[in-house]
């Protein structure tokens, strides 16, 4: 059980789990499921002009154009027949189109990418790369007219208890080196920085990228904090990394890029860390689109009513509602939390103890922020109390004595601000 230490003076010190914490050294392969569901994040959730329909046959690795007009596409991860297409909504109002495929046991691979990828020129492969495992959209890093100047490869993980990336750095160091070359070629970026914990320095140095070793202390591997610590170039609150010409990619996605080019097939499997109720870690490999139920069954992890299922880690993951939810291209971990471990949120106001202020890595005045956010004053929160500087680590809620869901309020505030911003743009 996680607890504040008896001598609780100072900031919480939470360490990213290293690969030495994984149970068993092997990556377990999860047998392919008969039902694969692809979740495609679509800015508009309309089902009217879809180019796909129920009954269509698809091949593994095939690029599926989603709409009759427009560029949206996804990569099929199974061979079979589409049985259902529906709309789903996700975190903070994100809109998804979910496509269910009844999978055949034998994979037929699609060859289109092999043809396009032969000479490896960015223009040809760009229309295929938005669905690589380990990243939600690689194409945001490929800017043909105005390439980024730096790409940071994260050899650590997004959250505590996740070991997915670290495992890949250790097991696939040679593939990573090749991947870095492909990354340079497709993106046109010269400067590649590879961030790893001290234990993986040897492996990282094989990659040919500039290696930066950081202490695995949460949340130092978050993009905005890395920008400050490693590039000494903090991101202003209203901008993002790409505005400063910096891209952020996980080690897994780099390896996936290499697989795509070397094998001529779009990779369709994903490495995940499974965190069970006792916080034991298991690493598995599964098809993107495999339902969580099949993964948990294969590992014989029981879940019952009242437990919690999370995509991601304990600090910044996203809760899911059903075992039927499929794993996505950027799902690095599935965490199962027993109902006894679920801590209800508090109902009382802030007492100004200042724990959050001391814990905040971005130096936000969280005590003032929460007073405004609780009252829905999102614009004031952004203008006067730096709401948009938040790096989204969740430490404020973790230390809150009154158990106020501060992180939730912050994300809601950011979401509402983004909504008002986009409304103003459309009305202007």
């Amino acid at each position: 059980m996680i607890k504040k230490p008896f001598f609780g003076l100072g900031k919480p010190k939470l360490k990213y789990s290293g690969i030495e914490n994984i149970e068993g050294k092997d990556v377990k392969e999860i047998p392919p499921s008969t039902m694969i569901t692809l979740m495609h994040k679509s800015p508009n959730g309309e089902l009217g002009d879809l180019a796909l329909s129920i009954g269509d046959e698809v091949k593994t690795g095939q690029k599926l154009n989603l709409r009759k007009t427009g560029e949206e596409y996804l990569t099929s991860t199974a061979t079979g027949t589409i049985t259902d297409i529906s709309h789903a909504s996700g975190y903070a109002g994100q809109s998804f189109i979910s496509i269910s495929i009844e999978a055949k046991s034998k994979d037929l691979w699609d060859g289109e990418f092999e043809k396009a990828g032969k000479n490896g020129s960015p223009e040809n492969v760009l229309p295929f790369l938005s669905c690589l495992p380990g990243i939600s959209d690689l194409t945001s890093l490929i800017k043909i007219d105005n390439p980024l100047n730096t790409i940071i490869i994260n050899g650590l993980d997004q959250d505590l208890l996740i070991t997915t990336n670290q495992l890949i750095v250790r097991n696939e160091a040679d593939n990573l080196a090749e991947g870095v070359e492909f990354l340079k070629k497709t993106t046109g970026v010269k400067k590649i920085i590879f961030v790893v914990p001290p234990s993986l320095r040897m492996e990282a140095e094989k990659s040919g990228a500039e290696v930066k070793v950081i202490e695995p202390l949460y949340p130092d591997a978050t993009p905005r904090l890395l920008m400050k610590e490693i590039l000494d170039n903090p991101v202003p609150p209203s901008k993002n990394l790409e505005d400063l010409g910096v891209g952020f990619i996980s080690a897994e996605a780099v390896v996936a890029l290499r697989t795509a080019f070397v094998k001529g097939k779009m990779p369709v499997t994903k490495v995940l860390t499974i965190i069970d109720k006792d916080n034991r870690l298991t690493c598995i490999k599964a098809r993107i689109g495999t339902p969580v139920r099949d993964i948990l069954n294969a590992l014989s992890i029981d879940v019952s009513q009242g437990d919690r299922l999370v995509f991601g880690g304990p600090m910044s993951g996203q809760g899911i509602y059903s075992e039927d939810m499929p794993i996505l291209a950027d799902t690095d971990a599935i965490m199962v939390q027993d109902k006894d471990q679920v801590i209800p949120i508090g109902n009382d106001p802030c007492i100004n103890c200042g724990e959050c202020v001391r814990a905040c890595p971005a130096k936000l005045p969280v005590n003032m922020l929460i007073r405004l956010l609780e009252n829905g004053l999102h614009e004031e929160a952004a203008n006067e109390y730096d709401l948009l500087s938040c790096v989204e680590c969740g430490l404020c809620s973790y230390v809150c004595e009154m158990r106020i869901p501060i992180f939730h309020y912050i994300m809601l505030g950011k979401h509402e601000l983004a909504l008002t911003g986009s409304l103003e743009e459309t009305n202007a």
Partner: protein
Amino acid sequence: MPNQKLFVSSHAPYWHNRSSLSAKSYNILLAALPAVILGIYQYGPPALGVVALSVSTAMIWELIMNYVTKRPVSIGDGNAAVIGLLLAMLLPATTPWWTVVIGTFLAVVVGKQIFGGIGGNPLNPTLVSIAIITLSWKGLLDFDEALVNFDLGFYMVYPLAALKHLGPSVVSNYSVGELLMGQYAGAIGSTFGLGLIIGGIYLILRGMIRWEISISFLVGIFVTALLFNISDSEKYAGPLFHLLTGYTLIGAFFLATEDSSSPVNFIPMLIYGVCAGFLTVLIRNIGAFVDGAVFAILMMNVANPLLDKIRPKALGKGIKHA
């Protein structure tokens, strides 16, 4: 859907360090116990009566206000008990029962609940009550008058009052050991210096109070008293005497550190503490009151929102990008 398990879902994070307000309150009560127990041992049943009445009526006032304001019952969080106990620690053992009841009313209802309950109070509730009692009933907090019928075998004169009326010559009547062990007349829970220091260090190490406030308050008192002493040692007592008498130690570890009325950023905490210490000695040495800690801390409580505006730049703020 049949066979569908219902999961608990919420926003991240899914871990918590399990700190809570009740744990904090109970730890403060625990840390205050050594000083209270010595007070009860010295003054006997009257002191026990004041402590028990104060804690219980503070909780009752809280409960009544919970019902009146139709809010969830909050006496379980221990905050009302802490207010009651601290109030008792500042009172002499002979305080009449009605003063205690009014005192806890002033602390819990006027000091805290009318501002919206916990977290809303701009001033330390206990000090609000003590300040009103001091101003309204002049003799009640005069320890020499209140404890006139006690003879506990040591020098039964309240040191700060003696200092005020007789000058620094009285300092020689008290040894440091006596001051630390509570061998002088005073309030129930604020004379046992050693106990308060041990309690305070315990709270600091557990992360329950902010060390910056306690230490800077003591530094403020020490430096100011030292400057006065250097300027005219015939007129002003030395810094150690000020550190170990009156409400100094209970103020540093239990009163100035109250969450809602004190700052949270590093520099503001230092300013808050040092200024409170400075004002305390100023009031003691040239002001009208015997002890200055109560009004000094209240003054700085008022300044708290302004002080807390001094804060570090957030990540990415104040950087110009071409």
